[in-house]
Every structure is written in C-alpha cells, then in structure tokens.
C-alpha cells in the first residue's frame, strides 16, 4: 500500500514539475519580448522627438532622423498590399472553390507550402536578377513592394483558404440552389463571410513585410537617402502621378541596420529609437490581428 502511495506521489511530482516547466517556458518567451522592448525603450525613447520623425538621415547622429525611412515604409507597404492581397485572395479562392482534384492542383498546393520555407534572402536575389535587371525597375519602391508582396503571398493564401474552409458547405448549396453562379456565390457570400479571416491574414502578412530587411538590402536599397519620393498627387491633370514608384527609397528596418552597423555609440541610440518605432508598429499590428481573430471566431456561429 505504501509502495503505491509512494509511486503516486512520485508521479504527481513529475507531473507537477512538467506543468511548472511548461509555464516557465512560456513565461521565458514573454520575458524575452519584454526585456527586448525595455532595452530598446531605455536607450531609444529619450531620442524620440518630432525632429527625429521630420529629419533626414545625417552624418551627425544628433541631427539624424527617420523621415525618409517612414515615408519609404509607407510607400513600399502600399505596393506590397496591392500586390499580395489580390493575388493571395484570388489564389486562395481558386484553390478552395474552383480547383479540380488533379496533379496540377496538388503541385500548386505543395509549392505554396514550400515557398514558406524558402529563405527570404533568395526572394531578394530573385528580385535583383529579374525586377532590377531583366525588367529594369532599378532599386525602386516598385521593386521593393513587389518583392515583399511575393514574399508574404503564402501567408495571405493560407489565411484565405482557412477562412473559406470554415464556411459550411450549406451556404454554397443554398446560394447555388437559388440560381447563383459559382462566381456570384463567391462574390456575394463566400468572400464577404470570410473577410474577417482574410483581413487578419493580411495584417499579419504586412507586419512581417514591414520588418523584412534582407531582401531589400539585396536589391540595393542600402543607400543614403536624404530626399522624399515624388508626391502621388500633383497640381496638373490627371492629378495623380506614379513617378514615386520608380524612386529610390529607404525603409525603417534598413535605417536601423545602417545605424546599428556603425561603431559610434550615438548612432546606436538612433538605431534603438528606430527600433522602438518599428517594434511598436509590428506589435500593434499583431495585437489588432489577434483581437480581430478572437472577435471573428466568437462573432460567427453558423
């Protein structure tokens, strides 16, 4: 009897230990993010000022700012979204709603899974060879946006497919039995109902693109940029200009990399301040995505 009790105690002990270990692991990862943020904030926050946001980079650390970087990030993200959202949603819709069960569909699916494992820097090499030299786009906002758009494409595709799959088959049958065609079903029912999940995926995708550095360095973006891209709106008709697409650019993570690679301490402070801005942006986007996912999961009951 006592042997049994001892055995049970021993088992309970190990089980308890596992619980503690698991909890500590989670706590550790949360702690890393907190320490990282605190370390950045401690060095960087005092440097944040209006001037820091409104100045161009400079040789003098105290005068340097991130104006061209955040404007560049904004412009590049616009192109990225315009590239990744239509392509990703269309691919997701095709694979879920249209694709026949054949070897080619399986090839496309396998390919998307594999793309997620391809190192991001090879996307940069592809962009350098094809967009920069073959197509002659140069190291421009257009090249950067397309590169990042293709890089995060799998995230959008997977999110679209998952939220389409969550819609019960009965919705499709009901729509089609009322005479709606396949496309009408997709346009009027499936895409609107899955838009929450798609939106979450798009935000996650953009938050990855915003911090992505390596592929942009590869296309030659690591240069000194002390000017803004051309404005998208002009005074003369047709009032909209696409000149900015072919402008050279810099983005927040590249500016950060530039500053952290210098030996002077003062530039490290600038790097930390940029890091605070960048990290706040990505964490905010992820928080929004997590909140949206939570809300949509709760809100919809079929």
């Amino acid at each position: 009897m006592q042997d049994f009790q001892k055995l049970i105690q021993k088992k309970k002990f190990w089980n308890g230990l596992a619980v503690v270990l698991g909890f500590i692991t989670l706590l550790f990862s949360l702690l890393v993010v907190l320490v990282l943020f605190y370390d950045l904030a401690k060095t960087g926050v005092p440097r944040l000022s209006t001037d820091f946001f409104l100045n161009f980079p400079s040789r003098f650390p105290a005068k340097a700012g991130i104006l061209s970087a955040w404007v560049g990030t904004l412009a590049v993200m616009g192109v990225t979204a315009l590239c990744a959202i239509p392509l990703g949603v269309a691919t997701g819709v095709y694979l879920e709603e249209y694709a026949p069960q054949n070897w080619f569909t399986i090839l496309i699916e396998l390919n998307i899974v594999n793309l997620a494992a391809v190192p991001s820097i090879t996307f940069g090499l592809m962009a350098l060879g094809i967009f920069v030299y073959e197509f002659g786009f140069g190291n421009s906002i257009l090249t950067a946006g397309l590169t990042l758009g293709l890089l995060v494409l799998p995230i959008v595709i997977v999110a679209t497919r998952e939220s389409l799959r969550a819609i019960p088959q009965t919705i499709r049958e009901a729509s089609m039995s009322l005479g709606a065609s396949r496309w009408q079903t997709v346009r009027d029912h499936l895409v609107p109902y899955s838009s929450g999940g798609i939106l979450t995926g798009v935000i996650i995708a953009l938050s990855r693109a915003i911090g992505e550095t390596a592929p942009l360095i590869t296309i030659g973006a690591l240069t000194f940029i002390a000017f803004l891209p051309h404005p998208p709106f002009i005074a003369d008709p047709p009032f909209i200009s696409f000149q900015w697409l072919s402008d050279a650019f810099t983005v927040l993570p590249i500016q950060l990399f530039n500053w952290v690679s210098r030996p002077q301490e003062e530039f490290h402070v600038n790097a930390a301040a940029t890091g605070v801005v960048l990290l706040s942006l990505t964490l905010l986007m992820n928080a929004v995505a997590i909140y949206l996912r939570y809300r949509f999961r709760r809100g919809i009951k079929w």
Partner: protein
Amino acid sequence: MKLGKKEAALRRRFHQKISEFVIESLLFTAALVSVLLTVAIAGILIKESIPFFEHVSLKEFLTEREWTPMFDQARFGILPLVSGTLLTALIALMVAIPLGTIAAIYLSEFVSPPTREIFKPCLELLSAVPTVVYGYFALLFVTPILRNFFPEIGFNVLSAGLVIGVMIIPYVSSLSEDAMRAVPNDLREGSYAMGATRIETAIKVVFPAALSGITSAYILGISRAIGETMVVAIAAGMQPNLTWNPLEPSETITAFIVQVSMGDLPHGSIGYQSIYVAGLTLLIITMVFNVIGFVLRRFFREAY
C-alpha cells in the same frame, strides 16, 4: 414577344457563361503566379551561377578552405560559409527545439482551451518582432551579457545563434502543437485509464503519435534558422571563418549575400555571380533538409 424574352434569357446565360469562364481563368492565373515564382527563383539562381562555374571549378568550390571572392587574390571555397551557417543553425536549434517542444506539449496537453487562447499569443509575439530588432538585441544586449563569462569576445556566433533560437520557438511550437492536438482523444483516454499521468501520456503516447507532424515543425525551424539573415549579419561579424568555435566571429551564407549587396556591385561581375552561387547553395541546403523531413514524415506517419 415570347420568343424575344427567351432569346434575352439565352443571351444573358451566354454572357454569364463567358464571364464565369473569364473569372475562373483569372483566378487560375493568380494561382499560377506562385508556381512561376518558384520557377523564377530557382531559374535565376541557376542562370547566374553557371558563369561562375566557368571561372571556378566545382572541386575548388567544394574543397578550398577560404572564401574571399572580393579580394584580388580571390579564393572560392564555400566551406567557411557552410560551416558558419550550420554552426549558427545548430546553436539556434539547441534552444528552439527543446523550448518549442515543451511549450507545445504544455499548450496542447496541460492547458484548458480558454487559457490557451491567452497563452498562445504570448508565444506568437516572438515571431512578430522584426529580425533586424533581434539583431540589435543580439549585438547590444546578449553579447555584453556573454562578455561576463567570456571577457574577450567581440562579434560571435553564439549570441546570434541563441537569439535566432528564441526567435524560431513559435515556428517549432505552433506546428508541433497542431500535430499533438490532432491526435485522437481515444488514445489519451486509453492511457489515462491505465493510470498514466498527463506528462506520461504526453511523452509516451501523444508525442510518438504526433511525431510525423512534429518533424515538419522541426524542419520548418531548421529552414528558418538556416535562412535567417539580419541577426547574423549584425551580431556575428561578417568574417568567413572555418571554425566550430561559437565564440569566434564567423559568416553565414545569408550574411555574405548581405555584405556583398551593401557595396556597389557591377552586374555580371564575379562578385555579383558569387552571391547567386551562395544563394543557390543556401536553397540546396534548405531543400536537402526538407527532403529529409519529407522522408521522415512518411516514416513516422500513423493512421487512425
């Protein structure tokens, strides 16, 4: 009158058929882009690598122990870059696989679903941090801490590897957790009924049953660790170095590509070609691990 109506209806159906066809073709084209993308990546890497091997023999590439493509006396041995890459990835995996697996077991087997909803985002935050911020962290936070133990280190592989390890924990844990949760409950209940505790069930029943999916998680972790760029470029020192000592500076394949891209690079020069050769090597290494993963997954697959 009646005929006209019928004709109109027919015409409408015809138009609809056409527009349905056009839309399906458009959607198919979009899906085709992802395939073309893979072809483009592999194609351009191979195309730009071919002229490189007209200068450098494959034997020199694989056996030469120095990599100095930008020097006057250029040497083209990929070994130092490969060793740097594998060493960094190894350190990262020594962090990510144990921690990621523990986190996955905990989330899948020990925690109630509402708590999981709260805990999981905490883990996902790790993958939300931009890699360049991790690089800053590795250079200006982790390296100074390591200096307490090893006073004379500067740039080093260890800090980069450790930070990458933490960074890829969510990749390992999230897929592992999915795999473990997909294990049918009958198996767990059978184990509990035999008097096993949760941890015994997790390790001896659920983990082996989910091993196929867990392998995918590990392979994704390896791919991420091998392909990670900015952390090593910032913290590991960018010096090709054929060494297994993690306290020395070294350079990975990815960091080399960054280093060369930072300078002005004439299109078609040997330096330009060398980054494509490096990229091709990187892709091949990643693919080898993915094929190994595919085979292992087949091997471990269990059907219920």
